[in-house]
């Protein structure tokens, strides 16, 4: 949250960035990086845009060219087209929908502009030079294991497990749900009810309010997204319920602080770090300059990088907190 005392408001991207100007970070030829992402209407996406901009600022050889973020696919296509016309050296794109933006990404590649795809993946490998993103299926698996194991240890049989998704129509949501269900299956558990909350706080409150009415006794809830999670937690508090445990998703600083304090139902969150945007800028710069990654032996940047989804609990929250993004 932006209104936390200034002390805790740390730049997540810069914390992870090496300060030294050597190796990969040594200045090279000047590159123009075009950047397009969905409209920043919640913390995670806001962190994406901010991390990208911050990362770009670290390099004197990078000119950062962001275009209007939008949630309309038609407009994002135009935005990317305009970047192609502006002849940027490399593009970093987090598409609203990978499939729908595929064609214009392909156009860019065909026009000789390498594309770094972030998060929501293009179906066609010819449409991007490199992809970096979180492991959505893995996130679901991590949440499923945490819940499954905790309940198993408690000896609960036939538990009531609820799932609050983000935007239902995103493939990444469906991947997360699949991972979650698959992991639960290994414990012999299933999801009792599933609703989507559009990644917004308010929708989180509303959906949770109704879900709590629908289930008088709950054992666990997995909420895909910590931004909407604030609303989910508010609804739980309003209803005065605490008989279950909740696991979050994405890994906001706020959620981590709650977990650390261990004062409510939120016991864990599984990460999906928005630092990927900063990494994507770095990768884009290297690709444009024709460099490899100095820590690897390869001459070129890898084609695909999947970030692991880690499970944050009370025990390791302190360690991850600096990487958490503010809701």
């Amino acid at each position, binding site marked *: 949250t*932006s209104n936390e005392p200034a002390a805790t408001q740390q730049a997540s991207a810069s914390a992870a960035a090496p300060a030294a100007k050597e190796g990969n970070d040594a200045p090279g030829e000047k590159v123009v990086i075009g950047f397009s992402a969905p409209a920043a209407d919640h913390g995670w996406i806001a962190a994406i845009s901010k991390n990208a901009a911050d990362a770009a600022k670290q390099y004197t050889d990078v000119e950062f060219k962001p275009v209007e973020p939008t949630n309309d696919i038609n407009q994002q296509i135009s935005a990317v087209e305009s970047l192609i016309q502006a002849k940027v050296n490399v593009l970093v794109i987090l598409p609203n929908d990978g499939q729908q933006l595929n064609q214009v990404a392909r156009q860019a590649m065909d026009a000789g502009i390498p594309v770094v795809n972030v998060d929501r993946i293009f179906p066609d490998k010819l449409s991007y030079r490199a992809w970096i993103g979180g492991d959505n299926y893995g996130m679901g698996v991590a949440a499923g294991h945490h819940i499954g194991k905790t309940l198993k240890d408690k000896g609960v049989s036939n538990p009531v497990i609820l799932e609050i998704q983000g935007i239902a129509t995103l493939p990444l949501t469906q991947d997360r749900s699949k991972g979650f269900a698959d992991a639960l299956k290994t414990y012999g558990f299933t999801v009792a009810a599933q609703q989507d909350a559009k990644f917004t*706080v308010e929708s989180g409150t509303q959906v949770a309010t109704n879900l709590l009415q629908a289930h008088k006794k709950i054992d666990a809830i997995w909420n895909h997204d910590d931004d909407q999670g604030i609303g989910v937690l508010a609804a739980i508090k309003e209803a005065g319920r605490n008989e279950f445990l909740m696991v979050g998703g994405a890994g906001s600083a706020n959620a981590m602080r709650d977990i650390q304090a261990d004062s409510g139902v939120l016991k864990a969150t599984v990460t999906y770090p928005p630092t990927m945007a900063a990494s994507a800028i770095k990768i884009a710069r290297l690709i444009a300059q024709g460099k490899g990654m100095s820590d690897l032996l390869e001459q070129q940047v890898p084609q695909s990088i999947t970030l692991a989804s880690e499970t944050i609990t009370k025990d390791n929250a302190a360690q991850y907190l600096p990487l958490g993004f503010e809701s």
Partner: protein
Amino acid sequence: MTEVDQAASAGPRLKAAGPGGRFGRLGEVRHLGLVAALVLLAIVGLVTKPENFATSSNLVSILALASTIGVITVGMTFVIIGGGIDLSVGALMALASVWATTLATQSYGPVVMIVCAVLVGTGAGLLNGILIAYGRMVPFIATLAMMVAGRGLAQRMSNQRTQLVQQDNSMIVSLSTTRVLGLPLLVYVFALVVLLGWLLLNRTTFGRRTYAVGGNPEAARLAGIDVRKHTLMLYALSGLCCGIAAVLIMARTTTGSSTHGDLYELDAIAAVIIGGTLLSGGRGTIIGAILGLLIFTVITNLFILNGLNTADQLIAKGAIIVAAVLLQRRSLKTPT
């Protein structure tokens, strides 16, 4: 818009909800359809989820869910009866919630936060009113512009983050968590706004003139009513309601956010119209609008109680809206 309606009817004319002497009563014929629809939904709830639906805590939940948008619906009813429309309500609520939860505002404590939310809402509503009444902009466009700019400003103030209500100001959150006679305080706020709105609309000259301004602005002008000033006040009133709603949403979600109130404008307008108010102005009741809103809220509640997925929810919601309106029509037809 609804004139097609009347023109197309060969039979005796149906009257939409209007403000006569006995108007605004719950038991009135024009509301029977809505009440019938609600009863039908309740029966569905009782049959499908007997153990969940009729519990007092579920009913409290429904009222709590309805309260934020309910307060906005009251303001919207005035605006629409007055011949206008307000697309900015959701954005104004978001803006007010953000403004009231900045670090700076929060440092003054909860009372100032509440005052801030209400003032921001009213101020923005006044601006709407000025553009419409004095700038003579079409309400749809003026409030659309306000909706767009209001969200932008909210995003800018909040830096696109969600702003938590701090521990020190938890008095605001207690509106949602503290219960009196089993009901959270915010439900009382909602009820009070409805009551005051009803009194204002039905028992004061301001309210009655609102019908004139919406129904026949030229006649209103000739009767010596300052149509512009009145219009201005209607939008300010709607903004005021957005400010109050902002306080309620802050209480419920413990946050201020630029994403609050997304698409509230559509829901509020739909509730007002389902409640029998004409988009062309001059007719309508607050009770009808609130009944319309409750129908929407109960529908969602039922869906989630029954575990319907979004897609099916949407399809069913569309069908139910149509059914509710046709039901209402039928109940109006018989007694004519």
